[in-house]
């Protein structure tokens, strides 16, 4: 523990805080987080039933905002920390730090403190919005303490994930990917620990809900309640304690629950801190070991051995054709990493769906579970699509290769189409895999002779569902354009990713808000819920956004306006 007393981390902390104070993105991020919270508050208020009283509404809003805050923490904090050490490795500044009396542990502690301050500042920016439901009433101190403890755990775990990834990897993309992967694994592990401990210590609640199933099922049932505080998902004594939500309402039913809950909260916070402590030690060991080595030759050997396509000749011809047709599209696929991402993602999705079907084959809610899983896979694929999309031009901007491409005779339209085509081609197999899995699930598991499931094939091919598929397909088509544009204009990759995601979801909403009314009016006052109108409005919104993005992208590249 001697090194904890040592102040060697202070120069790093000082430098990091000064550097962060100059980064506009920190201030914008806080504003955006508060704006998202306000937006969600508005959406929730609109969703609340008219009959609901103020306290019920307060509890409902509190649960929604707490969930949002957790999602924001898990999404933003790893991204904030993922590149903090790997960037220093790439720039060669890590070695310079080691020429001073600073130690690896000092560097890790300094970095973790600085990023913890950033994360808590972000949390504080959303806190005032969280106070609104508290002031509405219905939210007990118990709920507040539970929420704050969970958010604290979320921040610490995400911080640990980002730091670990950053200390392990040198390349930015690898560090970001690993940070999100570690963050997801750590968060799930802690939530599952909490749920398992709760079920084991207190025992399953009795009531109308069937608790005779396995521990696994009980944990899966408790888990959403643990995270969100919605007791609709967790029945105590056969009835809900509150019509809207909140831990206090549910847990006050039986005092042992509340007592165990409190103990588990403390245990979770301690576990999160322990995890961070371990990560600091592992990370310090790792950077101490690797800061001298610029690059290892082993991965090159491995890549040549394991990532060279088997049908090399045919593959070379195919790649050469692509290079002749559009060199920028070729750029998206030449590396073994890109190919591994492309086909690896498909492989992982197949594996996950196969495992899920094997485990859940006797479960009577297999179809629901599979659809939930497919939605999650779609979410993961979209996140990766956004990430790869925004990192494409970022890398070229940093290396200066974009400048070299722009002075070749390639036309701006070729550069844009090449990039967009390359991104589509990279992610199309993964999306097709999810779509195929979905169709297969719906077709096979609602087959009449199975006769076990709550959903029917017709339920999943309703006009509403078709509209959803249509919106997803349009989102897939437009995403590379948005990602390419924001990659070009925004310096920070995380901000570019967030803006891309927002735009993807904004396009259909904008279409419905702006075009639906005029469309209905022009058609002579058809019903507003006529889905063909909604589909047309979504299509128009997407076309408008895509057109505008292409115009701006063309303008930026022609005028060489991009951020460094």
């Amino acid at each position, binding site marked *: 523990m001697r090194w904890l007393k040592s102040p060697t981390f202070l120069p790093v902390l000082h430098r990091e805080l000064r550097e962060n104070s100059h980064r506009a993105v920190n201030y914008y991020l806080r504003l955006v987080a508060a704006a998202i919270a306000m937006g969600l508050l508005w959406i929730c208020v609109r969703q609340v039933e008219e009959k609901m009283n103020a306290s019920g509404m307060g509890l409902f809003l509190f649960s929604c905002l707490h969930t949002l805050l957790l999602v924001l923490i898990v999404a933003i904090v790893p991204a904030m920390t993922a590149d903090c050490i790997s960037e220093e490795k790439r720039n060669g500044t890590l070695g310079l730090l080691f020429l001073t009396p600073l130690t690896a542990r000092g560097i890790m502690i300094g970095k973790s403190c600085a990023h913890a301050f950033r994360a808590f500042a972000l949390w504080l920016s959303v806190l005032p919005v969280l106070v609104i439901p508290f002031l509405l009433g219905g939210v007990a101190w118990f709920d507040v303490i539970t929420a704050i403890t969970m958010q604290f755990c979320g921040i610490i775990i995400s911080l640990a994930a980002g730091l670990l990834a950053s200390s392990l990897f040198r390349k930015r993309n690898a560090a970001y990917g690993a940070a999100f992967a570690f963050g997801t694994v750590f968060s799930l592990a802690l939530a599952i620990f909490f749920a398992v401990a709760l079920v084991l210590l207190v025992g399953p609640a009795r009531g109308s809900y069937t608790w005779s199933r396995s521990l696994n099922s009980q944990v899966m049932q408790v888990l959403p309640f643990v995270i969100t505080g919605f007791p609709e998902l967790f029945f105590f004594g056969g009835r809900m304690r509150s019509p809207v939500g909140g831990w206090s309402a549910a847990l006050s039913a039986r005092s042992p629950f509340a007592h165990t809950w409190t103990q588990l909260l403390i245990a979770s916070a301690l576990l999160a801190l322990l995890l961070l402590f371990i990560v600091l030690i592992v990370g310090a060991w790792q950077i101490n070991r690797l800061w001298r080595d610029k690059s290892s030759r082993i991965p090159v050997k491995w890549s040549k051995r394991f990532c060279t396509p088997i049908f090399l000749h045919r593959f070379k011809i195919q790649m050469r054709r692509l290079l002749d047709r559009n060199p920028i599209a070729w750029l998206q696929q030449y590396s073994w990493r890109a190919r591994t991402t492309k086909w690896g993602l498909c492989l992982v999705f197949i594996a996950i769906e196969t495992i899920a079907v094997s485990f859940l084959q006797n479960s009577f809610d297999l179809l629901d579970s599979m659809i939930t899983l497919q939605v999650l896979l779609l979410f993961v694929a979209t996140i990766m699509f956004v990430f790869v999309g925004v990192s494409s031009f970022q890398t070229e901007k940093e290396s200066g290769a974009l400048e070299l491409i722009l002075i070749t*005779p390639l036309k701006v339209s070729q550069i844009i189409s090449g990039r967009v085509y390359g991104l589509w081609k990279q992610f199309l197999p993964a999306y097709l895999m999810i779509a195929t899995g979905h169709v297969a699930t719906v077709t096979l598991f609602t087959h009449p002779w199975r006769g076990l499931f709550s959903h029917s094939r017709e339920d999943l091919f309703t006009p509403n569902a078709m509209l959803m598929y249509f919106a997803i397909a349009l989102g897939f088509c437009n995403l590379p354009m948005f990602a390419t544009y924001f990659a070009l204009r925004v310096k920070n990759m995380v901000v570019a990713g967030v803006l891309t995601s927002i735009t993807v979801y904004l396009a259909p909403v904008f279409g419905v808000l702006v075009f639906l009314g005029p469309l209905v009016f022009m058609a002579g006052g058809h019903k507003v819920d006529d889905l063909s109108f909604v589909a047309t409005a979504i299509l128009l919104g997407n076309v408008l956004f895509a057109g505008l993005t292409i115009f701006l992208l063309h303008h930026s590249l022609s005028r060489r306006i991009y951020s460094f």
Partner: protein
Amino acid sequence: MGLTRRYGAMTALDNLNLTINRGDLFGFIGSNGAGKTTTLRILATFLAPSSGTAKVLGHDVVKDADAVRHVIGYMPDFFGVYKDMEVTEYLDFFGACYKIPTAQREKTVGDVLELVGLSEKRGAIIGALSRGMQQRLGLARVLIHDPKVLLLDEPASGLDPRARIEMMAILEELQRLGKTIIISSHILSELQTLCNRVAIIERGKLIYSGPVQGVRDQMSAGLIYWVTVRGESAPAIELLKTCPEITDVTPVDGQIKVTFKSHDVDPTFLPETLVRGGVKFTGLWEDELGLEEVFLRVTRGETQ
């Protein structure tokens, strides 16, 4: 002509008028922030001038940018490489960008790698190459489409002495092949021997443009010669002071510095005068004003 580029309130290039002849190896000299890179980026069609025009082989860099891109090869002061690509892949990619047919591209890649001395590294990953090799790769990329004009921004920076000499030899060879080369560099001693013409730029303004010898003549107050004599130098100094062609005679470290009124004076009368005056004359040589000294005299080291 009248090339100006502004970045907000700052003027990076101020009414630059410059002509570079075909086949020139033209040195572009200036302090950091003087406007050299801005000029090269405008010529490379990467930047548009705020006002004025620039033409490369008769093509306007703004109106006829496509034609310009075909005839120029631009090597910036950074590498601009994809570190996880192989050397041949990198050149193949840029060859495709310049629309070189597939069959021809393979041979061209081999040729340019041969020219820059990277043939043995054709299968290497770029990230594993040394700085000097990456610099050579940059030059190979510039040459891939056989451009007529090369714009090289600090091509020898960061290279070791051997690599620098080799780079200069390659540039001389390229000039012999008829390329027009515009090279910006801080290593003035090399530009002095390499370039036939130079331009000196400071704070975005052109200070001098012309032959290397011309700038020396322009910058030196007069023709300077050094004289050495055996024994006391005082009689020699007295003798030289009587000559009407000489403006100044100064003893420096046992030698005599003689400054003539103009560059047109024939200095051969000096030994004759000294010998006739009974001075034991031992040597006479011209003071060569180096490009570095000229640069220091011309510029005030002001940056923007």
